[in-house]
């Protein structure tokens, strides 16, 4: 069965946990035991049962009403299985949200119709980061419609403002809008009688169609051989190179390791214990080469004449979780390599809540920036737009997680 990851973006109070809990119940994707456990717990707390309890299984979450970490929940719908990656909305937990968002291409963005709620600044930042991390399809679910009497005007205003924001941050993917009430389970699987003015389909159907429609992915595929070395695997007295193929195919014969232009002959390729003639994208292989390489971890394998970019300077779009200045000492982690950055130039800062850029020489926490990095040594990489797996990195400021970046 095909499992589609769906990221849940939006502020914690706008009902993400309730929505997922509701989806699980409506699609019969949660066992009675789990529901009973959640009901018992809500009784103990003296709170009325609500679907969010199904997901929140840590004690503190239940008492504080806050989802702390990425949580996944699976729901079946027609011939697809959705894995909802619920991420917390709290600002200081944004680093967790980034790891949650990083595996999905489709997101549900939850906005609240309740007066005074709407979409928060923090939600906007999440959307920005999600876009950066490869989200290509967004369904905007305007929740809590039951609190505004299912008013179409309220809905339209929110749709308009979110639409503007998405175009401001240059989101060019697919966007759809659905009015819902997660608490009451309206317009999630079944059309709501209270919103007859809404001419679209319910949320899960919208999600289903979006994912099916996106199936024919952009076949601008990069298919040059790119494999990254993990390390060694012993085979008796021999040391084989373990590597993961990121694109293209690895075959017996001449291969090159970068940086360093190291030429070797791949004598044997082993995939899951068997000798093979070649192995394609996604394969973890063991390669017997004719002459040992001392510290191969992090090197990139390619064919002669099809080299990756090898440089110690690169431009990147980054998202910082902590303030970044040109004197910040950062270390980037890319493809198993940890490289110190000698010089860092901030070309501009981008406000993640508006998409506006300014020629500031620093990047405030939770904002983005365009940087010029000069690393202490050469690394092999590709632009993010060419090959995602070789164009993205995380960075650390004095050993603390500092943010993510993509190579431009």
């Amino acid at each position, binding site marked *: 069965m095909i499992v589609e990851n769906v990221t849940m973006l939006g502020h914690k109070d706008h009902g993400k946990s309730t929505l997922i809990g509701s989806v699980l119940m409506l699609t019969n994707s949660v066992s009675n035991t789990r529901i009973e456990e959640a009901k018992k717990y809500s009784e103990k707390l003296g709170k009325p049962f609500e679907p969010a309890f199904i997901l929140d299984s840590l004690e503190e979450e239940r008492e504080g009403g806050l989802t702390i970490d990425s949580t996944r929940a699976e729901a079946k719908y027609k011939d697809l299985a959705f894995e909802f990656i619920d991420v917390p909305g709290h600002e200081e937990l944004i*680093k967790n949200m980034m790891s949650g968002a990083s595996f999905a291409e489709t997101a549900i963005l939850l906005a609240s119709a309740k007066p005074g709620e709407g979409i928060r600044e923090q939600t906007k930042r999440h959307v920005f980061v999600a876009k950066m991390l490869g989200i290509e399809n967004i369904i905007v679910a305007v929740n809590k419609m039951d609190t505004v009497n299912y008013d179409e005007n309220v809905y339209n205003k929110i749709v308009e403002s979110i639409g503007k924001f998405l175009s401001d941050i240059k989101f060019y993917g697919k966007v759809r809008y659905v009015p819902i009430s997660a608490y009451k389970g309206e317009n999630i699987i079944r059309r709501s009688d209270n919103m007859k003015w809404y001419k679209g389909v319910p949320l899960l159907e919208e999600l289903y169609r979006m994912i099916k429609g996106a199936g024919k992915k952009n076949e601008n595929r990069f298919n040059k051989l790119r494999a990254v070395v993990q390390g060694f695997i012993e085979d008796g007295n021999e040391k084989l190179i373990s590597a993961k193929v990121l694109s293209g195919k690895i075959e017996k014969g001449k291969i090159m390791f970068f940086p360093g232009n190291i030429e070797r002959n791949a004598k044997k390729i082993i995939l899951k214990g068997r000798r093979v003639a070649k192995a394609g994208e*996604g394969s973890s292989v063991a390669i017997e080469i004719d002459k040992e390489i001392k510290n191969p971890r992090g090197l990139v394998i390619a064919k002669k004449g099809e080299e990756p970019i090898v440089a110690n300077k690169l431009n990147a779009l980054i998202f910082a979780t902590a303030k970044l200045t040109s004197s910040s000492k950062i270390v980037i982690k890319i493809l198993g390599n940890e490289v110190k950055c000698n010089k860092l130039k901030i070309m501009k800062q981008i406000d993640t809540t508006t998409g506006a850029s300014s020629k500031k020489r620093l990047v405030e926490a939770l904002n983005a920036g365009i940087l010029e990095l000069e690393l202490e040594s050469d690394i092999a990489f590709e632009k993010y737009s060419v090959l995602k797996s070789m164009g993205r990195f995380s960075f650390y400021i004095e050993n603390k997680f500092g943010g993510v970046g993509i190579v431009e």
Partner: protein
Amino acid sequence: MIEQNLKELEERSIFILREARSKFKNIAALWSMGKDSTTMIALARKAFLGKVPFPVIHIDNGIDFPETYKFRDELTRKWKLNLIVARSEIKPEISGFSCCGANKTEALKRVMKQYKFDALIVSIRRDEHGVRAKERVFSPRDKNFRWNYKDQPAELWDDYSSKLDNEGHVRIHPLLDWNEIDIWNYIKKEHIPVNQLYFSRNGFRYRSLGCTHCTVPLKSDAKNVDDIIKELKTTTVEERSGREQDKEKEYVMQKLRALGYM
């Protein structure tokens, strides 16, 4: 239960195991002789050309099932495993947890210290009991084995975290994305040997294995792997409803986790 693509799951697990091997100096794996940890060992053999290049640790409280001991010793011989048995004491702890509780953590701490392991492979899956759903693929523990669930480092793409401090260790979860049914599908596909307690004789079998004290059999007629897979596709009974410890409050389990119990 949703069945996933085995090839992708297998690739990812092999990648994780190899990363662990490359990043850490001294790794070991927990082996309970259950279907998950045995599958993990089978994956390790695939990742490392037929060998398992790290020790497997059995935390033994002395009252495991005789079938489990037999399975352990036979597979250790067959697959030439480097087995470390760490004896744990049965102590009075939190009620209901007297044998499978915190004292196992003590035995584990002892072994980690003795051998100076800096990373531990644990075969938990996200679809198991709620609390485990919070774990990441690489999850660091500090020196008191505390899992600081409020401040976990980001797991971005294929970027996994390294050691937390000099005395702590990192836990590696290569099976985090697998569902129960994926495990059985893989066991079937690869003909992985499995503890016979999982199979029914006379109307009962064990769906999940703990020690003889806290594991309770379920009514079932599943006599082989195919039967089990069929049964999983139709049943909704929580996997662990045969294990009494899960009838205790979830927060107690969470606290045990925070104390280092897996």
